[in-house]
């Protein structure tokens, strides 16, 4: 049963990644694309966690943590750039 559920949830996350990609290309303004990127990195963490459950290995945890940190920092840096035209003042 678990393998069936994991495949189903992976499909759901994949569909949401495709929807995010659509918003990334179609989004009318820059902040929309930024929001799509932000959602995309959270969804990719979900995908990595699901891969860890599927393979039964706790090794993927570190990759998920790294993506969480880098994703937040890149969102913050992009926001600062759009706000002020500069990242480190």
């Amino acid at each position: 049963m678990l393998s069936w559920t994991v495949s189903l949830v992976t499909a759901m996350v994949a569909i949401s990644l495709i929807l995010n990609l659509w918003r990334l290309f179609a989004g009318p303004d820059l902040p929309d694309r930024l929001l799509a990127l932000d959602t995309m990195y959270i969804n990719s963490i979900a995908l990595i966690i699901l891969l860890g459950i599927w393979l039964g290995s706790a090794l993927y945890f570190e990759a998920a943590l790294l993506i969480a940190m880098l994703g937040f920092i890149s969102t913050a840096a992009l926001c600062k750039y759009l706000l002020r035209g500069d990242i480190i003042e």
Partner: protein
Amino acid sequence: MNFLLELIVSIFLLIGGIFILVGSIGLVRLPDFFMRLHAPTKATTLGMGGLLIASMILFTVRESGISVHELLITLFLFITAPVSAHMMAKTALHQKNKMIERTTGQELIERARQQKAPDVKSSLND
């Protein structure tokens, strides 16, 4: 026992997956940026919470020793999600993104963009 464990883990996984999907559907469906901002920040944090709880339960039982390091990602996401939402809302105000017409209180936007207090006469007394 084993069936019960799989049932609990599956329920948490399904909750997580549904919330992540709802967040992304909201991102596509809603009409303006400020409304779109609500769907991913709220729905996705709870979705990740569900997935990480499922992973925590599964690895705790399978590997005969508690596995709680997923809590770290959950905690990190719960701390950073509102911060990045706030920064993106600030960016959208700065870039003069339009809100849809039926949004109430649009006269405050210009004051908010300049980081000034709202006009006391017009907004607070009515």
